[in-house]
């Protein structure tokens, strides 16, 4: 009861303080305010801009042109970091269909558990503006897979790269029209980090200590070397 009265009281106070125009007028006014500008991308190629920003976000990257190469890149990362072939991956049909044998990778499909070394996510998209990858929570990528492991490995299809945060939401809205609203939408832009002790940046706060992005598809030949040059300078 107290709850209802709090709501009624509050809404009443807001109503008195607001213009209370018709919704159509409100939206017309909102639309007249124009669109927010986004920052200029650091390169004209989406792939290169995305790679530059992933590197700036303390991520590591690999470029692959087909699924077999991608599996091998996963294997290489697992071997160099943990001397293992195991990882956990969500029940994503695209991941189920990967040629795992090409890299002798042994995936376990499901949700990550505390203590597991590495997880693999297939990103819904990559955002060039911020060097972020996007995942939706659900069977194909349980939230734990983004958070509980030491290393988070992410596959990103070049075909799913978008330029800006706004473009990402345009795609998210499109996806939602088809399959409803996911519980969670995660923009991930680097390994978990903190600067809470004397403002010094430390990687591996609560989530993954390392973040490895494998770009998959048609990538301009010099994109990776350009990106490395741009971030090392």
């Amino acid at each position, binding site marked *: 009861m107290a709850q209802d009265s709090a709501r009624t009281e509050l809404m009443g*106070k807001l109503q008195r303080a607001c213009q209370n125009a018709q919704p159509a007028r409100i939206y017309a006014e909102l639309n007249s305010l124009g669109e927010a500008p986004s920052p200029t991308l650091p390169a004209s190629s989406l792939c290169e801009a995305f790679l530059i920003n992933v590197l700036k976000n303390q991520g590591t990257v690999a470029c692959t042109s087909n699924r077999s190469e991608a599996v091998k890149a996963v294997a290489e990362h697992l071997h160099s970091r943990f001397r293992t072939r195991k990882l956990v991956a969500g029940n994503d049909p695209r991941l189920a269909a990967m040629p795992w044998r090409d890299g002798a990778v042994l995936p376990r499909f499901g949700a990550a558990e505390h203590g597991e070394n590495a997880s693999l996510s297939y990103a819904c998209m990559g955002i060039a503006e911020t060097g972020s990858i996007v995942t939706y929570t*659900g069977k194909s990528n349980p939230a734990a897979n983004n958070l509980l492991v030491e290393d988070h490995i992410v596959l990103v299809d070049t075909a799913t790269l978008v330029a800006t945060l706004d473009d990402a939401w345009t795609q998210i809205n499109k996806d939602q029209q088809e399959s409803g609203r996911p*519980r969670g939408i995660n923009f991930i832009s680097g390994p978990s980090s903190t*600067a809470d002790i004397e403002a010094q940046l430390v990687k*591996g706060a*609560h989530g993954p200590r390392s973040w490895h992005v494998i770009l998959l598809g048609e990538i301009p030949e010099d994109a990776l070397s350009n990106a490395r040059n741009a971030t090392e300078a």
Partner: protein
Amino acid sequence: MSNIPEEQGSAAFLGNVRDSLLETDKVKRRDMLGLFMPLVRDAAVDQFDQFQDLRKQVKGVKQHTLDNLHHYLSQFESEALDNGNQVHFARDSSEMNSIVLGICQSHRAQRVVKGKSMVTEETHLLHHLQRAGLSVVETDLGEYIIQQANETPSHIVGPALHKSADEIRELFLKKHDLGERELEGPTEMVAEARSVLREHFLSADVGIIGANALIAENGYSMLVTNEGNGDLCANLPKVMIVCTTLDRIVPRASDAMAALRLLVRSATGQPITCYTSFYSGPRREQDVDGPIETHFVLLDNKRSDILASDYREMLQCIRCGACLNHCPIYIGVGGHAYGSVYMGPMGSVLTPLLDSLEEAQALPDACTACGRCEEVCPSSIPLPDLLRDLRHEKNREKLTPSRWRLGMKTHAWLLARPRLYHTLSGIGIPVLAWLGRKKGSFKSLMLANGWTDQRDFPAPQGKTFMQQYAAQRKANNGSR
């Protein structure tokens, strides 16, 4: 259960300032912060060509949102309900605290993990839950450190930046079972906190987080963190509670994106944080993880009054902390001196509005009128103007000493009569200059002891500005 820190009113501000200026070690760290944070913010802003246009667009949308808050809040509520949430409204801190406690108790929850949220600092939620016998752990590293030290945040973004690495090490050595480990350096300390907090995440019954934005068009809340602690709170426990306020509402996802671009650059100089997450509600039928029950608790705590007042623009604050990092007073005295949950320029405006002007009357004076806060505020809030308005109100409500008010009145009367003012100052200033001609300054001055108690008053150099100006004009005209 830890002790509850004694609440300090901002009434104690001046005393606190005196104490805090004596802590040389902390003064040095604050000076570093005051140099370093503006640099990283400027670098990030400089890389964004149209930053001023972005600021203007966001300002327009924020203003529009507040003008139509009733509409957008109703829309958010209905979308959030459709998404499967329970939505609660709290008039004040105690209502929010009891709603949250009620939810925890209905699930017989014992263990609660909390993400960083200034709103729950405002309501002292942690202590309310602890008093009811719950185990509550702050999981943002900075918040965890100050929880262990039984302190309050000194900064709205970096709550433990007042502590040295050595102090934090001592704290962990005291509070954690470390055996032989020494915890050399921040990396080891972060690893230690990580392993301790991981256990809490895995065993928690309820997760509490804040929100950086509430998106009206789809009912998602936006959470911005670097550590990922908020996401662990939002995804692992069976119950998730989002504690936030009405002024976080934005109409569209694109408006949240625009605000995000401003927020992160202004707060930490990043183009984006490691984790930017959007949560809509409980787990869906096909999901294998996520909370089973989710709640929004929306706190008013006088925000609806602020909306109806001349201080409405303060509701556009996105809590980035840039005004703190750029304020000579904040950098000089530190966040704890304010004795309030919010500090720095935004805190000096907000605290009198949330508590009372009478209790927080020292805070609007904590301003040099340098204007840096307004310059860097991503929401272009005219903080110096709002502080001046509060000082004005203080005067009107006779909260200032009567002698002070009489002085102000006399001064105003004189300023309204320029001829008389120029005549009197034309006599007074040369007299002062003559009196101070030997030492060049005054150790004390009648009627201005408040000023000369702290520093010497420089003696005027000859004539008044207007006299010099008139003389120069005459000379220039003559030479033409």
